[in-house]
């Protein structure tokens, strides 16, 4: 998955072929675009904050969908709200904050690191968020939020090494009944932050973790007749199943790294398009399924292989084995992203 900025005179190249952007213009999002030569194709998807998070350039550790969802929900953001963020980092959360407060609200986001602040500002502008997001280079831990933010924020979000230093400034910025959130990987930071919140006019202090576990879906043949196993020995099937699992795991890994794609915003003539997934003629649905586990065509091929191998015993085999759709968690995933600490500003 890749973010592509569409320009009429530009083209996108990958191992599956060359895709002139002008072929994309005017086509609806969600379409498949075919390469100039060969059968390679890409899917053109509309950018969303979630897809952007999957393709953006990591300048720092970023927040992912589960934490983002909780932050937006528990900060009680809605169109028109004003939210302060520090630091901007890679801008992953910023996109979701902007979606939540658009079109009449505003995200004031602060980043200590100069280069990062500039890169983020450029991306927000390019992604059409320029009017709703303001990036400022500032050392929030030392200087707090600017005084002109006092009393203006419906919510404040901190992702800083020492959030507890910023709590008094946050208390001055957040209106009565407004929400505070801090994201910290280590419990010691959380501890100091909670203590500072309790002492600075916050209540309902809650610390939580949210993790998302992805499940992979597959079809399995389970042996049911234990005295008369099918022609293909169980052991061989197990090896196949293991090999399939390893392939699936590999796909899963690549899905994170280079899998299906997205993104990109307004280019010439106000047009926007994006590419999700890429595939050669032979690898049909691979890209489309990259985020969904294994790809169906491949699996069907495997199944056909099995059936051909068992040949005439097919009917008998049906009695000896049971085909079942099953799911299980993908083996490796995130074990921790950070602790989310929320608190509500005490009413006057």
């Amino acid at each position, binding site marked *: 998955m890749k973010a592509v900025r569409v320009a009429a005179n530009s083209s996108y190249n990958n191992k599956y072929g060359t895709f002139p952007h002008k072929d994309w213009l005017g086509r*609806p999002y*969600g379409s*498949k675009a075919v390469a100039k030569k060969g059968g390679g194709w890409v*899917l053109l998807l509309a950018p969303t904050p979630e897809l952007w998070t999957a393709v953006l350039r990591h300048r720092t550790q970023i927040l992912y*969908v*589960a934490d983002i*969802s909780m932050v*937006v929900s528990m900060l*009680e953001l*809605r*169109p028109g709200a004003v939210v302060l963020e520090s630091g901007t980092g890679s801008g992953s959360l910023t996109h*979701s904050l902007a*979606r939540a407060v658009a079109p*009449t609200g505003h995200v004031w986001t602060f980043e200590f690191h100069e280069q990062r602040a500039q890169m983020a500002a450029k991306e927000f502008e390019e*992604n*059409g968020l320029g*009017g*709703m997001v303001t990036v400022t280079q500032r050392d929030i831990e030392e200087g707090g939020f600017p005084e002109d933010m006092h009393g203006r924020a419906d919510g404040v979000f901190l992702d800083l090494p020492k959030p507890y230093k910023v709590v008094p400034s946050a208390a001055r910025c*957040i*209106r*009565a*009944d*407004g929400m505070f959130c801090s994201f910290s990987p280590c419990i010691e930071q959380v*501890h100091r932050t*909670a*203590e500072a919140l*309790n*002492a*600075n*006019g916050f209540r309902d*202090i809650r610390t*939580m*973790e*949210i*993790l*998302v*576990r*992805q*499940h*992979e879906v597959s079809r399995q043949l389970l042996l049911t007749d234990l005295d008369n196993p099918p022609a293909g020995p169980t052991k061989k099937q197990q090896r196949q199943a293991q090999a399939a699992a390893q392939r699936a795991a590999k796909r899963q890994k690549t899905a994170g790294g280079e899998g*299906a794609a997205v993104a990109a915003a*307004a280019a010439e003539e*106000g*047009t*926007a398009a994006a590419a999700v*997934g890429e595939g050669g003629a032979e690898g049909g*649905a691979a*890209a*489309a399924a*990259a*985020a*969904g586990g294994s*790809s*169906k*065509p491949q699996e069907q091929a495997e199944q056909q292989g099995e059936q051909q191998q068992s040949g005439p015993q097919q009917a008998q085999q049906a009695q000896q084995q049971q085909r079942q*759709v099953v*799911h299980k968690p993908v083996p490796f995933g995130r074990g921790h992203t950070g*602790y989310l*600490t929320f608190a509500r500003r005490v*009413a006057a």
Partner: protein
Amino acid sequence: MAAAAAAVAAPAAPGPVVREGDTVIWDVNGDKQALVAVDGRSRVKLGTAFFSAAPLLGCPYGSMFTLSADGSTLERTQYTPLPDWDLPDDKPDFNTRTNDKLVQNDANQTLSAAEIEAMKASGAAGADIVAALAANSATFAAKTEFSQEKYKKKKAKKYIQIATVRRPTGATVAEAYFANSPAKTNYLRADTLALLLTLANVGAHARVLVVESCGGLVSAAALERTGGGVSPGSGVASAWAGGPTAKKPSLEIWRSFNFSQQQRAGLRFAPLSTLLEEARQAQQAAQQAGNGQQQDGQRQPQEAVQQDGPAAAGDAAEPMQQDGQPHGSEQQQQAEQPPGREDAQQQTAGGAAAAGGPRPPFDSCILAAPGISPLALVQHVLPLLAPSASLAVYSPWAQPLAEALDALRGQGQVANLALSEAWWRELQVLPLRTHPTMNMNHGGGYILSATVLAHR
């Protein structure tokens, strides 16, 4: 600490206040939440009795109330920092109490029940009673610090009654229902709701289709995120299965959200069959109009979108292109509503706002009706969804979603198929007592998410 405590006094900038007719969440001790519409006559429960809610009017949301000294009325109380943090946390050996000689016996309280009643009658604050109970417990001093804490908490729940007035939002309403009457929202957990809204890409410009059996919570939370009438044509269509004659299910939770009339206008209720008919009609109209640009300002149904120009393609990108030009003005939108439509009829009781809300195609879809086969429901609503729409399906059971994923995979109708499960846990963070809460909810359910592809 002293300097920090002083900061408490610094008042916050004013926030929203409780107005006549508002629904509030009346949260007693964080244990029990009730949704109450506040006016001069309504009453709220504190302890075992009901009291007039009149003192709430005009108070800022977040205000705390307790009983007046004579026990007859509610009065506002000021928040003070929790004492939990006054313990020195740099002395590792402070909790030297151990339970070594403690004999299991409940007759260790020297304060009699009559004495406790007398304290209450004389207007003693709950906190004073708890302190007296601890002081008069023969075993309190011998308890471990851990047990002392538990003891005080238990007594505090019994004798201190403080209620907080909370503003209803997607998060607070979801948590209140889940804690007090989860069956009414079909056990939808607040984090799962938050994930559904994110994965379905709900925002101000979204045209959201919701099919739910969660009492309307999902529709209301989605409407809150779209801001209601903020963007013309955006909003939430809350639909149900069962053909044109099916009875509308109970979806009234939106009434607790204090939506303005304008916001409420972004919400419509309709059977799925009506929406499908609208999509068919719009498609026919588009076909009659040919392949050129549409002139009538009507929203493009999906088939038209496929042959439409860049502006149509821009629709789905709106969530990230907040300054793009939305199609159609609000008046046109309203003019489109045929009078006496089914959903308008069904909104007569209490539906003050005129029927508005989005028409197909939708660019965002949340399905949270676990009693319906997810595969059947997804295939049923696909004709209503715009290409590149974001789709999120909730079920408490993984298997029906897994089978739907299996069936949809590789069919070219959707991409980015994923089956996710959230794991949500809270922690107690206190000096020397930091740990995840001892109990947790394991039932966040499962979410199938996908991006809709253009029809081939």
